């Protein structure tokens, strides 16, 4: 099986993301993940820059790569033109592709995410739509949101949205043909295969938990 490093190198975001980090810390200074988690994008760049297989494997199995919020504030500032954010994207992709993601609690959450947002894309043509944002699991949305959901179509149509209706406008119901095209794209470009890899991970996880 090709080394982790060579697999990473196939991802264009890896070569774009890291040419030569000089350990200056400008990215971590403005990183919101570093302001909240015990996380340091500079350290990730340094570890990846060693190119050692165990370091990469530890990263791919670890929690750290899942803490980045992908706001890419680091890209604007890096004096060497590196992009820790891209690096994280390539690491996360490989972690899920290779199944190593199930070794970290944060990585395992990708399964939940896939089943929620991934399926929403193919079913509704939207990443997020009102019915997904259930008040029980989104208390932070506040009472107005609960009320808005209760009103549903009346409120949305009052504001000019189509609210799951046929035809034009916001939140319109996607024609089946459109969804098929989306699915075809996911099929053709490896999107579905990627999701299968995630599900394989979930399967393996279930086996481990049972044994």
């Amino acid at each position, binding site marked *: 099986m090709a080394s982790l490093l060579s697999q990473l190198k196939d991802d264009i975001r890896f070569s774009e993301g890291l040419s030569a980090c000089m350990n*200056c*810390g400008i990215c971590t200074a403005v*990183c919101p993940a570093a302001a909240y988690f015990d996380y340091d994008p500079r350290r990730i760049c340094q570890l990846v820059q060693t190119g050692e297989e165990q370091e990469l494997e530890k990263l791919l199995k670890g929690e750290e790569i899942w803490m980045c919020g992908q706001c890419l504030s680091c890209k604007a500032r890096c*004096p060497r033109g590196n992009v820790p954010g891209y690096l994280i994207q390539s690491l996360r992709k490989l972690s899920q592709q290779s199944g190593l993601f199930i070794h970290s609690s944060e990585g395992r959450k990708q399964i939940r995410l896939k089943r929620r947002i991934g399926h929403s894309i193919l079913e509704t043509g939207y990443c997020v739509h009102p019915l997904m944002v259930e008040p029980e699991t989104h208390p932070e949305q506040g009472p107005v949101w609960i009320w808005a959901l209760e009103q549903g179509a009346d409120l949305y149509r009052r504001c000019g949205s189509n609210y799951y209706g046929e035809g034009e406008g916001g939140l319109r119901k996607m024609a089946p043909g459109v969804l098929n095209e989306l699915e075809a794209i996911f099929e053709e470009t490896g999107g579905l295969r990627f999701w299968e890899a995630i599900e394989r991970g979930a399967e393996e996880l279930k086996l481990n938990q049972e044994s």
Partner: protein
Amino acid sequence: MRSSEYINKDEVAIIGGGPAGMQTALVLSARGFSVRIYEQKEQLGGHLKGWHHLFPHGVAASDLLGALKEQVLARAIPLHLGQTVDHLQKVGEGWELWQGETVVGRAGVVVLANGFALFDARRKEEYGYGLYPSVLTSADLEAVFRKERPWPFGPDCAAPQIGFVHCVGSRDLKCGSPHCSKLCCVTAVKQAMAVKAFFPEAQVYCFYMDLRMHGLEYEELYRKAQVDYGVRFIRGRLSEAAPGQGKRLHVKAEDTLQGRPLHLQLDMLVLMSGMVPTFVLEQQERAVFFKEPVFGSGFVPVQGFLAAGSVVQQKGLFASGACKGPATLPEVFADAAAVACEVEQYLKSLKAVAHA
């Protein structure tokens, strides 16, 4: 048609009246050559005019400048002040010096001593130079030391919090200057101590990536700043400066040795602007003259990078001092003497050819 006025082959024209230009002129005139200095400003001295005290021993810049000027006057070297030579035209063996559309001089040999420019700190926008009044460059701080400019914080601020930012416009691909300007680190330490001398209660921070105290006795300055002046050195390049309460600044960096981001309120932020080329000759012209693509960050390229002294690949065109890259004053003076020897060598070879 340009007049084919006779060009005195022995005439040496020096473009730039800073320390490099003056020293080269002095050495050449001492060796008996007729020399002219073309300086774009109204006064000789270049950046030296703006400095307060010089590292590492705190010699007053005005004394050094005064001494140089005295010698230039003593040797009665003709000066063309306020003349910006922006174009060179090879005529036979000699040169024509153009300012815009007019020829301002002719010479057998031209020595470029146009020195460096300070990086325009406004281009490093995240530090807010030019936007926030409490952000100064190292040159501004020298002006403050020379009492030509007020302190950016009020008199009521007895214990000002002051930050120095290293590598501004140096080692930065995004600002188009990939090189290290070598002098900013030692300047920062010198200025940090100087500020503490003005405000003993001040707390001074230096945000560095690698402290390159390259010269003799510079490292001792670093230790002295830490122990005697209580300057705190934080290894992490400054990422951002934003306006906080009143005139104060809120800066962000990472202490890379602890692996944690850090915030700090400052009363003054000093940006150690790097040394960049002056682009005195138009970009196209340079390509014509130097025939090589402008290497590195645009300083004047020289033949045989490691050869002593410096001969620009075009016969009869030399370069002296910081126009070739960041250099300290001692290096500039040493380089000036080296260039003078090269010029003398070149002129002698011309005479030999002439007689043969």
